[in-house]
């Protein structure tokens, strides 16, 4: 758990970060979102003391970070920098083994761990271990950087635009793999991005920043549907429809509307595609547009109900929901 209280950073009279506070719960992913220069990186680096805060207090898992020696502190926090920062003169295996070496792990332990991790990241050690960063694609480099940050199994992970250098398609792919990594399920993560879609996909909790201040904090739905001010509203304007559909889940519309009764009692229903009620409306619409069927089954396992939706019934429900908000 990370608690930051009233932290600031002043670079020769410029307030890069201006008195912000936040809290990241154990196992949660918090996203720092904002336009270029708003202070995201500065905030992140204060957490592992790559930048020392000008004021405020930060504690990680109950310990004040200023009480620890920076090097020792950093060895317990995974860090992926804005540009991957791999050592060009180290092979993939050597790059990944930097932190274990600092922690004086024995060789076989390091190797086994590297093997396990690179396997998960689809870079088998046997094939990639001896390669050097310039022999890898951008996406592969990013994954090595992530492996390097994860190897010592730190409870906390800081990532600064880890997918920033990738083209949108690769980026979406790497992000998907990332979401599915078992390694990450338990971690407390702070992730910096200026990509709204990424923030919505990965963040349990999002801090929208502007000019060194947190404009609004909350989950995706709060941010998109209840903007705190004009900046927050405008920030999402350019892809509002998409974002709203991504932020809203079927759970939110389950009681508002569903498909015509014509569909409800159709004999073919057994062959319709299914989706969880936790999924976003956008995800449902994507399935519909890819499928040959006109409807899909939405299932809520906890309440043990399922409903059937068509594209037009989803749109109708969305329209009603917006009017009520």
């Amino acid at each position, binding site marked *: 758990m990370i608690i930051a209280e009233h932290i600031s950073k002043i670079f020769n009279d410029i307030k890069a970060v201006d008195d912000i506070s936040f809290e990241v719960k154990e196992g949660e992913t918090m996203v720092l979102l904002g336009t270029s220069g708003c202070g995201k990186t500065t905030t992140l680096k204060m957490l592992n003391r790559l930048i020392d805060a000008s004021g405020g207090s930060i504690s990680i898992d109950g310990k004040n970070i200023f009480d620890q020696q920076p090097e020792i502190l950093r060895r317990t926090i995974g860090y992926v920098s804005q540009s991957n*920062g791999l050592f060009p003169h180290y092979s993939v295996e050597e790059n990944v083994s930097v932190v274990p070496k*600092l922690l004086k792990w024995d060789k076989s332990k390091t190797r086994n761990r590297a093997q396990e991790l690179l396997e998960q990241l689809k870079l088998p050690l046997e094939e990639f271990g001896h390669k050097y960063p310039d022999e890898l694609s951008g996406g592969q480099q990013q994954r090595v950087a992530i492996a390097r940050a994860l190897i010592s199994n730190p409870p906390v992970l800081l990532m600064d635009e880890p997918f920033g250098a990738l083209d949108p398609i690769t980026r979406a792919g790497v992000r998907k793999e990332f979401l599915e990594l078992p390694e990450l399920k338990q971690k407390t993560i702070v992730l910096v991005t200026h990509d709204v879609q990424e923030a919505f996909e990965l963040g349990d909790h999002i801090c929208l920043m502007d000019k060194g201040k947190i404009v609004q904090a909350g989950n995706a739905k709060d941010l998109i549907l209840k903007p705190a001010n004009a900046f927050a509203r405008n920030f999402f304007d350019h892809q509002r429809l998409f974002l709203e559909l991504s932020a809203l889940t079927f759970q939110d519309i389950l009681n508002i509307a569903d498909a015509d009764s014509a569909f409800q009692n159709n004999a073919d229903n057994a062959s319709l595609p299914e989706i969880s009620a936790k999924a976003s409306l956008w995800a449902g619409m994507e399935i519909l547009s890819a499928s040959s069927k006109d409807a899909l089954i939405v299932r809520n396992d906890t309440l043990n109900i399922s409903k059937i939706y068509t594209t037009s019934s989803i749109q109708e429900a969305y329209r009603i929901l917006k009017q009520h908000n």
Partner: protein
Amino acid sequence: MEVQQSLWEFMAQQSDKLLSQTLAHIGLTCISLLIAVVIGLPLGIWIAQRNKAAWLVLGIAGVLQTIPSIALLGFMIPLLGIGALPAITALFLYALLPIIRNTYTGIRGVNPAVTESARGMGMSRWQVLFNVELPLAMPVILAGIRTATVINVGVATLAAYIAAGGLGEFIFGGIALNNSNMILAGAIPAALLAIFFDLLLSLVQKANVRKMRKVSLVLPILLLLLSSFYIFPYADAKMLGGFTPEFMGREDGYLGLKSKYQLNMPTVVISDAVMYKAAYEKKIDVISGYSTDGRLKAYNLITLEDDKSIFPPYYASPLVRKDVLTKYPELEAAINLLSGKINDSIMTDLNYRVDYLKQSPEKVAQDFILANDLYKKSKNGNKGVIRLGSKIFAEQYILINIYKALIEGNTELKVETKTGLGGTKICFDALTNNEIDMYPEYTGTGLLVILKPTKNDLAALSGSREKVFNYVQKGFDEQYNLQWLKPIGFNNAYALMMRKEQAQSLNIRTITDLKDYVSTDNHRH
């Protein structure tokens, strides 16, 4: 004339010396390089972190770099004397700038994202330096070491001027003796060394950045190994000779001392610019000086009597192109006005005023002309231009200033002077190539360095002043179309010199005395 010896024959015959000079050369280069790396690298690393110190340190190193190498050696002598120490110090100072500068730029050039991620993973400052910054900066640092090496191989030739050895001994000896084989025997290995080191380091430098960690281990060891080649050219001998490169290679010099006198003493090679002072400061004991040199007087040295007459007479005479004498017949008379006017002691005194009292050669020449009623106001004529050349020492500067006044005062000709033409070979080549019209030369030099008679011819001359003069006059006339005019009067022959008080306390008056003293001394050990 003897049949020209081929370069290979010369190298084979001198292979011992060649090897020891080459090893000394490599050693000098590598020792100074090693010290420069040991000091320059940490300094470069330090200033990479401190911008304010950077410009100061780089500025100082840059200024050192611009000092001409000969001058830098010159500055070293009063501080550190002669021999290995000043040579290595000077070479070290030259190697410093490229190493500091490249270390600085190399480390500054490391991608900050990489060092930041290194710190982010919990590396300490030293770990970042040794594991990340240095290996990544290594190609640039190596480029600096490479530059420094090539500079040092070149500058190390000058070490021969201050008794530190190296291939300069052959090069400067060869220039002084007009012996192309000797020059090449020094210059070719020196050039090959430079090329070899350059190639070697360029290979290392281009080696993949990934192998840099190995390189940074191997290189210091290699340097250390090569440094050990440098065996200091002299141990603590009781009696040490310091001879010019020219003297070392001459029959009427060191070779004659060995064959005719059986004089066998440890020697170092040294430039005549610093030789007298080194003798005065007891760095060396016996030197090969010139008998009219003013420093003889200044440093309280005495000449040893040449009791077996191995040094031929060196009467100074103007050596002139014959076509110039024909074109301007009045020239000869003007030049001959000086004939017979300067004897040995007058010349020594004139030299003393320049070398020791630091009067300008122009003033000393002017005073002499006035004192001897030779003065005539310059006619400021423009009938033609006579180009006077001189070798690079005071006596020649004085003489050509006197000639300038005589020619401009007595003829309608104008004089242009080209001073400091190095040794005999440079002056003589300038004269035959019609770049100058005359310069003062010595009969002995003309005989032994230019004409190179056979042993039999030489024996027939038997050191007689007239015979030698007639022989060179005839030879130069026939072979080179050059004219020796009447001798000026003094005999600036080679002489062995010692500190007066040492010679007197050891009771050494002649070269034979010296030989006796040296050989008994050697027996005792």
